């Protein structure tokens, strides 16, 4: 499954999910671009990539002739993603058009809403974050798996308890607004335990899922995603509202490092 999110005017964010992947092997992905669903296709990822997303930045300016144009409402850009199992076997590919879901009028509304959300998050209400997607496929950890395939060490330096090497995909940097809620303290078997579950507003990319992580770069606080509610226009995401839980500073996820000085650059 593939989702294409144009980040007007200069970038396109592509995100994909493998359905029923073969566990324990890696997949390499090739992204092709075309002006038509029939081709011809221009390969834009050389060498192939091993991540869950790709940012097509080949839209330097809409004044340069001979380059794809995101500003046109009559010309479209198509993408084809091909997944090749590292162990050999059949390849899988999917073709999609930018904004295939909306009619002409709502395309404009959607672009406006997305742009407004991004600018609002960047300039007014948000702070810098790193979004880490938990791996659901890939090469298995060689250090901590039992014979049953279960991770026996959540602090494993190779998989961080996810059973897949690396644990999480490459971080996607962006902005988000964190709402405040009180920290609830309860007396449990473990003595006094703390929990802080709160709401978070972020852009529509990357599409988040339960157990993914959000890291706030200014405070170095890690949050785990519990629920995702996308705000949509005709089933097309505009931004996401998440329910997140702040992780205890001794949680295994704090072993994951992100770049605290990274400046997200989705909107120039």
């Amino acid at each position: 499954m593939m989702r294409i999110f144009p980040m007007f005017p200069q970038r396109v964010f592509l995100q994909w999910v493998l359905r029923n992947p073969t566990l324990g092997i890696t997949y390499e992905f090739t992204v092709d671009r075309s002006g038509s669903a029939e081709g011809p296709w221009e390969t834009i990822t050389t060498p192939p990539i091993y991540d869950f997303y790709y940012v097509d930045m080949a839209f330097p300016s809409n004044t340069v002739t001979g380059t794809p144009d995101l500003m046109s409402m009559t010309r479209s850009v198509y993408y084809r993603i091909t997944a090749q199992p590292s162990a050999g076997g059949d390849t899988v590919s999917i073709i999609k058009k930018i904004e295939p879901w909306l009619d002409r009028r709502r395309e404009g509304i959607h672009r406006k809403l997305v742009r407004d959300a991004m600018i609002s998050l960047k300039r007014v209400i948000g702070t810098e974050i790193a979004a880490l997607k938990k791996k659901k496929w890939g090469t298995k950890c060689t250090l901590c798996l039992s014979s049953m395939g279960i991770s026996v060490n959540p602090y494993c330096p190779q998989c961080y308890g996810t059973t897949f090497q690396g644990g999480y995909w490459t971080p996607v940097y962006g902005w988000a607004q964190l709402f405040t809620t009180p920290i609830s303290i309860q007396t449990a078997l473990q003595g006094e335990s703390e929990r802080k579950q709160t709401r978070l507003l972020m852009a529509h990319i990357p599409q988040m899922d339960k157990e993914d992580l959000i890291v706030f770069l200014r405070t170095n606080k890690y949050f785990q995603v519990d629920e995702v509610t996308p705000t949509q226009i005709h089933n097309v995401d505009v931004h996401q509202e998440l329910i997140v839980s702040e992780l205890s500073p001794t949680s295994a996820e704090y072993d994951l490092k992100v770049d605290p000085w990274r400046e997200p650059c989705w909107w120039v």
Partner: protein
Amino acid sequence: MSAFLINQTWDGSALPLEIGEHRHITVGSPLAVLGLFVLALQHRFSPTAIGTEGLQGNSPDLRPAVEWEDPTPPEPLPWVWSGSLRPAEECDPNNVGAPRPIFIGPAFDKNKSIRNYRPAIYVDRGQVNVEKVSIDNFAGQHLPSGLKGFGAMVHIPIQIDCIAESYGDSNIIADTVWFYLLASRDILCSSFGFHVFTEPTLGMTLPEELDKQLFHTQIFCEVTIYMRWSTRPIAPLINDIAMRAAKVGDVNDVLQDIVLRESRS
């Protein structure tokens, strides 16, 4: 029975103790049994296991750690109890993958310096039952002083909770604890005077939602100890009640007044 009668002078303000016993926790009380389990588990997860000197202390954090004297050192575990919960890689970034400190302590400890720490082992007890083994629990009487001795079997269910961030972690920590208790039953029984120490039961590993999804595995066992206590004639209390009853005229009225808090004098 006779040990504390002969060797210890009882001033009436504390529990009768044997020589060397802690002032507030008698041998055989459920708290003492919990402490013993905590100490035994800390010993199991220690990088250099402690000797018998450590077992005599009452505060696990203050007891002196002595070098392991057995020629066969304990097996290396991916978790280590050392009293400090700072991860090794925090002090040395190159030490990634070093054994992780594990918390071992009594449950419901509100005064811990660290919260939400994993992995952890919590020791708690269930409902304590007393089993009568003699008529009115009576064991004997010291005729010159009027002091009576009693004893009964006390059943203390022990519950150990192994909490970790992954299913496998919790499962294996619990497996280690379970087999350790199973294998050392006879040693603990003979060393600490347990009457019965049942074979521990290893429970299922279950998820739990806190700040993130955790997993906990419970281990159950039951310890039966022979608990003893004594009473001596309490003349002042009985005289006080008798005098107040004589003043009012009916002992029932006095006691009802006390219960209903109508008598303030």
